[in-house]
């Protein structure tokens, strides 16, 4: 199974949402990281065939989406970001409806629906209208529908957005269960989610793939750029304003800071082992400042 994105580009007027993206994907979990507006959702929509690229092509095992037609979609499971459900359907009806849209036969659809509802822990409430579901329950139902046809390519766009920490852990585990022998592309701006389950990181910025590599080595480029230092409170505030501060820990009258910078922020700062979060902050600190409140989630 090989999914090739070749020179993918999507232009909206003068704005380029996705700019010349070329990636070869084989089975594994890909964490697609980027700030809001980086082009992640646009890229995923193009992969899912619901948005036409301005140029470039998507090939599955060497054949383009256009050549494969309906057959391409049988390989696909997609959970879009913030997608609405049909509030007047029960979860079971919704699953059976999606199974019909995916072309599954009735018997297989029923069996798979029950299996998945059990797996995402919605079986007991499967007869309830979706309008009564919490955000977390809807997200679980969202991933269950994406898995209905046991797809080879599973695309999850911000699947953990809006979930509380407990729900996020539960969700990550569900995704890990589904990920075996599939190409899973998981888009998020919540770094901790991908750091737990992704094998490969794809980092997007302004429509381009900024960085890609295995989870274990992707942070290597950050060696020597992550610093820790202990400073007085008034100095800590100065550092926060002027530098990329990943975390702050108050220790009595002192503050322990983790800073991502090319140069040592202070003579007594020492290098520490870089993490994915450091890498993200290094590249997206400006975008994150614009996003305001979303910063809390990234550093949390």
């Amino acid at each position, binding site marked *: 199974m090989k999914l090739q994105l070749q020179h993918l580009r999507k232009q*909206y007027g003068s704005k380029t949402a996705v700019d010349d993206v070329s990636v070869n994907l084989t089975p594994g979990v890909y964490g697609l990281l980027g700030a809001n507006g980086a082009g992640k959702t*646009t890229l995923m*929509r193009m992969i*899912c*065939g*619901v*948005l*036409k690229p301005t140029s470039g092509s998507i090939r599955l095992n060497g054949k383009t989406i256009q050549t494969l037609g*309906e057959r391409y*979609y*049988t390989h*696909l499971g*997609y*959970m*879009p970001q*913030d*997608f*609405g*459900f*049909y509030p*007047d*359907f029960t979860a079971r*009806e919704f699953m*059976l*409806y*999606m199974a*019909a*849209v*995916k*072309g599954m036969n*009735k018997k297989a659809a029923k069996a798979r629906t029950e299996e998945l509802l059990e797996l995402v822990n919605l079986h007991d409430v499967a007869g309830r209208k979706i309008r009564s579901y919490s955000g977390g329950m809807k997200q679980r139902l969202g991933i269950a*529908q994406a898995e209905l*046809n046991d797809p080879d390519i599973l695309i999850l766009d911000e699947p953990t957005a809006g979930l509380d920490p407990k729900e996020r852990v539960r969700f990550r585990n569900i995704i890990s269960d589904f990920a075996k022998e599939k190409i899973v592309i998981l888009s998020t701006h919540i770094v901790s989610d991908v750091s737990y389950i992704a094998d490969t990181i794809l980092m997007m910025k302004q429509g381009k793939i900024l960085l890609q590599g295995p989870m274990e080595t992707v942070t290597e480029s950050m060696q020597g750029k992550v610093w820790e230092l202990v400073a007085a409170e008034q100095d800590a505030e100065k550092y926060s304003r002027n530098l990329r501060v990943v975390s702050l820990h108050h220790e009595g009258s002192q503050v322990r800071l983790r800073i991502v910078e090319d140069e040592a922020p202070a003579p007594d700062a020492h290098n520490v082992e870089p993490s994915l979060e450091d890498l993200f902050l290094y590249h997206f600190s400006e975008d994150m400042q614009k996003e305001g409140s979303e910063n809390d989630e990234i550093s949390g």
Partner: protein
Amino acid sequence: MKSLVKFEFLKILRKKSTLIVMAASLLITAVFFGLPILQFQIYNQDGVLRGTEGIAYEKEQYAEISVPLTNEYVTDTIREVQELFADPDNIGYDGNEQFLIDDAYWKGIAPREDLLGLIAKNYAAPNVSVGYNALPDLDVSNGTDFYQARQEKIETILNDSSKGLTEKEKEYWQNMNSQVEEPFQYGYFGGWEVIISAFELLMFAVLAICIVIAPVFSGEYQSGTDAVILSGKYGKTKLTTAKILAALLFGILAFTLHILIAFALPLTAFGIDGWNLPLQINGTTVPYPLTFLEGTLINLGVIYLVLIAMTALTLFLSARMKSPYQVLIVVMPVLFIPMFLSPNGTSGLYNLLVFLTPYQSLKPNFGSYLSYQFGPVVLDAFTMRTVLYVVLALILLPLARTGFKKHQVS
């Protein structure tokens, strides 16, 4: 495909807004078609009879006059009225025209006033409104040919220059008229009269159905479900067809429910009497050789086609617009602006087009001699509307399908 249609149908049906809109629309229909029953009143010498009591009384009166309108019968009837007018004691005068009073009216006229009006109008000039009191002016000393008079009146209508009919059109209408059976069988047709005169009120039902199906495609875009269904195997193929079929199925079933109410109320109260009587007993110059039932069914067929075409228009817009509200902003004027467009005749492009608008197409216009000529081909209003709305549906439904198929999630 069956499951997809079922689920799409359920999607439409389950919405609370569907139930509210349908309940309101059914209520409006019931009120419109029930009002003539509640408001019905008929007078006799003892006073006024209302509602079902009045209807029963009127039907009793009609029993006496449910006869073939032969020339002999018409002549005798006219003479009877003339004899009543011959006695000055029977006559009243309102400063404008003479009329019969007391027993002469209540016994000689009231039980058959509609019939007398029909006869009188047959001899009057087109578009001139006359009543039984025009009958004494007729010379029936040597009898009368009721049907010859009808034919002459029709020729006057066809040759009226303001109608602007071509020779081909005149020939078309003459041919149609020649198929009208004579003599006309007269009788009671109260229920059918109510239905025929209120057909255009079904526009509210058409609107309600358009409101309900407006979100079929645009609702998916609005709620963000478009991405997930379009990435399914059948999202761009069978699902699109299923959505269209479900919308049409809903539209037809919901409209049929309205029709059942609209027809059941008057036909229960007034009875189905008259179903096999000719349309000409409600206006002698009507050219269509049809009974009330046939005329009603033909017009109903046209109305169903208008409904299907309006459903197709709604779906077409729904597939191309981002929200159901935008769809309705376009659909509502299409349905309701023609209500305020009054044709000032039956000729000229403007009038001919106005008669083809959805609202005007709900009206049967049985006696209007409304025709459309394309080269050597002449089409009456029913055929023209049928062709137009079938063509519209055949164009718009595939366009709706393509619209959803090509929709870009963004």
